[in-house]
């Protein structure tokens, strides 16, 4: 746990330097907001709590770097099992190979920290934290009347484990300042 915390702190410092290093670039700041469905998928069963997905990022041509902060909207139940995802913190790099398309596709690569709360009868409540590489694809289309506002959809594997995966489906809007 100490090692992971050390990694996260170092990552935050690196993120700070990243922001500083990009501040002189003519980058556009954006914010996005979306409801999101997380799927915790095991070999035997799955649960799907929902989250609110808030992201702040910088966009430079085909590149985007964003910080995602997600928190729980509702838990999910599988019989007597209750699963909630109180928080997900991620940093994503997004690349759009076809900038001029009406519907832009993004390749997404990043890292996430996912907290999962679970409760079950006769078993002590637990919180598990998963850190791992995240990847996926995203699509977005700008509104014709407000070009800075875009409708976006992300499909992500937040955590890719041996026998447990955490997937994310997020549909929302992005506003470029």
């Amino acid at each position, binding site marked *: 746990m100490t*090692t*992971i915390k050390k*990694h*996260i702190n*170092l*990552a935050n410092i*690196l*993120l700070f*330097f*990243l922001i500083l*290093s*990009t501040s*002189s*670039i003519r980058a556009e700041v954006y914010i996005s907001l979306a409801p999101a469905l997380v799927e*915790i998928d*095991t*070999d*035997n*069963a*799955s*649960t799907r709590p929902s989250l609110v997905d808030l992201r702040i990022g910088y966009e*430079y041509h085909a*590149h985007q*770097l964003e910080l995602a902060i997600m928190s729980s909207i509702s838990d999910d139940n*599988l*019989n*007597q*099992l209750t*699963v909630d995802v109180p928080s997900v913190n991620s*940093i994503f*790099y997004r690349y759009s190979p076809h900038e001029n398309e009406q519907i832009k596709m993004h390749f997404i*690569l*990043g*890292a996430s*920290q996912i907290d*999962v709360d*679970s409760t*079950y*009868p*006769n*078993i002590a409540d*637990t919180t*598990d*934290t*998963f*850190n*791992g*590489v995240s990847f996926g694809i995203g699509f977005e289309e700008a509104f014709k009347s407000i070009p800075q506002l875009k409708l976006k959809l992300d499909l992500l594997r937040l*955590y890719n*484990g*041996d*026998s*447990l995966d955490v997937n994310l489906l997020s549909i929302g809007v992005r506003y470029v300042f």
Partner: protein
Amino acid sequence: MFFKEAITLFISGLFLLLVACGDEDKEANLINLHTLASQDIISIHFPADLTENIISTNSEFNFVIQGVKSNNTDTTIITRDIVWSLSDHALSTIDQQGHFLASNTAELITLTAQFGPLIETLDLKISDAKFDEVLQLNKQNFNTDMCQSQEIKPIARYIDKDGNEEIHQLDSNTINTITWLIRNQEDNSTSQRAHIKTLGNQTNLHALAAGDIIIQAKALSIFTGTEKTSTDFNQNIGNNLNSIKVCNSDDSNLSSCNVTSTNIEKDKTLSLMSVGNYQASDGSSFNLNISQNSKWGINNTNASIAFFSDFQNLSILGNTESSTATLTVACGTITQSLSTTDITQGVILDDNVSCDGGINCMGASTAITISQLSVSSFTVSANNIDLTDNTSETLSSRPDEITLEVIANFTDSTSKTITTDSKLSYSITAGDDDVIEDKADSSGVFTVLGNGTAKIEINYRSESFIVYLEIP
């Protein structure tokens, strides 16, 4: 500009490398919880009636775990995702299906079953005490009805080298050596109401007719070295059978099943089963496949019947084309004598089985029609040239005669030359009396009259083939 982008990507990559540490070791908790929840289990235990604490050396035992559902009432045998293990240094073994193999020496070990985060343990004694005698037919008393099968787990006495008695379930080796004796209670005669069979270490009482019986177990006492016959175990076979019917064996809905087709081709088989509807003690009714314990009969040799190897279905083989046979089935005490029948192999008679209105018997029947074997295709040649159905074949020169050879390929993958078969018909549909004509008294031979197109239609058992020739 490019430099700044490269810096950005470099820092991003470094960030990812630092943060991207996997957490596979943490997955177990959530995986286990999802496993539990998917089966709605909140606790587990070894079921008393299916568990043994003392197991004989060199014997086998199948352990199971019972799960309690979240309503705290319903239970279920958990058949997957159990992790079985034995205490360290155990000489006995267990596989992940719960199949336990006892060591050849005595030992005290702990058996652990883990289902997700739930763990249950059982202390086991692997005993080298010697078998002496069967004491009980089954761990618990049971009720059974005619034409039902009931698994029994006999209880036996074992004696160790110090003379101490151990009473536990009969071990898997000894159970295969037991000779079961069954008599009718009212007159002590050898009973045809039931038999007991052991297969794969599993012993079943197969009840064929209602009534009171006495069961005894005869086996060699390893402790005394003499053959011992147990005391009498009294058992009643009830009659709560409401009805019996015959069904196609591939119909899984026993309440609505029936025989959908009573027609079978010669040399082909039809698979059937008998289904009994029983009255349960709570007033409800239920259906069972009772083929194994039913009595079957067929009234002639136009068809023959035999059990499949698992006795769960009956196979009917059509022997005589264009004929009929009646299949009868009964459960209970039938009119026909079984004195010369080995009931352990199932009851099949060369005649109808009948109940004659006896209260302890119910029957059903179905008429079987045996039809001709169907033709799947023909292999036809003309003057040794292979032909394709209704496809033109041009002969290189004009022959004096065309001689056909017709082979019928049947649906059972057999073939037969039928060129001169009386049921085969030839009909010239093109070129008749102009190009070819029938040769008198020579089936399948045609005289060539001139050049042109000749077509001959061949018909046999509702199948046809068009011979299509261009004669120069």
